[in-house]
């Protein structure tokens, strides 16, 4: 039987915070941990945290990343070390690291996969975890390249640095690396549960990206992209009491509106994947996104308020638990930092909803983008979305 324990440490010293997190998590597991998933706020010395967790877990395989927020079933923590431990005879994990991701994503992901066992046709169930540098803006490529190396379902996310936008890191066993990707391949004798959901609804007309370079969209429908977004959003912004025509990038409402009224790429009749334009810094031209937006992409402006995000937290957990026929032992959630911005003080309520729906330990991280790959869902990479992995008992 598999067991899962979670713990968080908030001491100012990295080693002490890591020890506290492992001590609490260890109380929830039965036997030697087979995996440690580690989320670390940027205020800590990452290497000290990793060394401490490895020592305290008898060198269990370790994977994780830097964050823009963390939580456990006890609620959100204020800049913590958060550790999830997984133990059980039927469970196994392997971890690999690939560096120089920006120079050659394919080679870096291939190097990370070299440390993972091949996927063979047997009766075991497998899932991957993909963490990568969150400032490269290439999460979609990295998510798909991981699947190409080991074609299994994936969860994960883009490492964050609490909006400093200066450096994000991933962890793989003893290593701490920036400009890197960490892959984990987990296997179990029982099926994992997974789900992905965002809770956004489209409105307005379809918009085509007519000029873009990487993650910068210059024009939509051959007009300045910001102008088009502003026109589409204006009526709803007015309803919230914001005069969008006098808005300055220095106003809090500027980022709030770009985070609430994001874009969705229509992937099927009912499905969208969300793209966040929150890196936009001016009102006179382009929209700047957190990941690449190719020319010719069809976009819709989407809306999601706090109420919709709260409903999403519960729904994604209920969906994930129904995809595994066994009782959940625990879960790890990959939540976008934008959800925290939309929810504000209600973020703790969303965590409560998730924990209540799961009835088992859960730890989570706020990322700069979320990975969710499945054989029947190759949207692969998302913004303002929850990707959830449930470990079976």
């Amino acid at each position, binding site marked *: 039987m598999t067991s899962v324990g979670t713990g968080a440490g908030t001491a100012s010293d990295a080693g002490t915070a890591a020890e506290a997190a492992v001590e609490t998590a260890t109380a929830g597991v039965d036997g030697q941990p087979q995996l440690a998933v580690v989320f670390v706020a940027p205020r800590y010395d990452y290497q000290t945290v990793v060394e401490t967790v490895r020592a305290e877990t008898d060198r269990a395989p370790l994977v994780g990343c830097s964050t823009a927020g963390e939580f456990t079933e006890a609620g959100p923590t204020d800049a913590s070390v958060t550790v999830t431990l997984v133990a059980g005879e039927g469970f196994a994990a392997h971890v690999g690291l690939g560096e120089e991701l920006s120079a050659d994503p394919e080679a870096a992901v291939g190097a990370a996969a070299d440390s993972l066992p091949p996927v063979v046709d047997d009766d075991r169930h497998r899932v991957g975890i993909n963490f990568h540098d969150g400032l490269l803006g290439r999460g979609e490529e990295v998510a798909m390249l991981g699947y190409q190396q080991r074609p299994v379902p994936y969860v994960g996310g883009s490492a964050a640095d609490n909006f400093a936008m200066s450096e994000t890191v991933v962890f793989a066993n003893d290593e701490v690396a920036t400009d890197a990707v960490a892959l984990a391949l987990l296997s179990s004798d029982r099926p994992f549960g997974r789900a992905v959901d965002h809770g956004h609804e489209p409105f307005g007309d379809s918009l085509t990206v007519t000029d873009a370079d990487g993650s910068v969209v210059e024009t939509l429908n051959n007009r300045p992209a910001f102008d088009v977004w502003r026109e589409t959003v204006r009526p709803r912004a007015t309803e919230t009491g914001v005069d969008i025509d006098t808005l300055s990038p220095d106003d809090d409402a500027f980022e709030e509106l770009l985070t609430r009224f994001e874009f969705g790429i229509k992937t099927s009749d009912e499905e969208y994947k969300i793209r966040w334009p929150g890196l936009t810094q001016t009102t006179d031209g382009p929209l700047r996104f957190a990941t690449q937006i190719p020319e010719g992409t069809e976009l819709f402006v989407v809306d999601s308020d706090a109420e919709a995000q709260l409903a999403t937290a519960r729904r994604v957990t209920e969906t994930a638990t129904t995809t595994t026929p066994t009782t959940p032992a625990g879960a790890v959630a990959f939540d976008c930092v934008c959800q925290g911005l939309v929810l504000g003080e209600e973020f703790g309520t969303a965590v409560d909803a998730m924990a209540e729906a799961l009835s088992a330990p859960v730890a989570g991280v706020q990322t700069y983008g979320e990975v969710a790959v499945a*054989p029947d869902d190759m949207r692969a990479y998302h913004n303002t979305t929850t990707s959830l992995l449930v470990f079976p008992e």
Partner: protein
Amino acid sequence: MEIERHTLIETFGDSIGRQKAERMVTAAAERTGLSGQRTLSRDEAIELADCLAELDEAGTVARVSASTVKTQITTGDIQA
């Protein structure tokens, strides 16, 4: 193994969006002489995915997506 063309569009569309996927798969099918076929053999589907990656419209994301579609064809994750 046979693969419906609309299944390829749906899979490719997950990555780059449905509208752009329909446009690119149609262009690739014309270029490979497969435009009249609604159902493709495994080898034809791989040929079409290869062509997708070579289209002028294909950027980095579309090229990686096309090779991901090939992985799915090879593993049997997409089929009719």
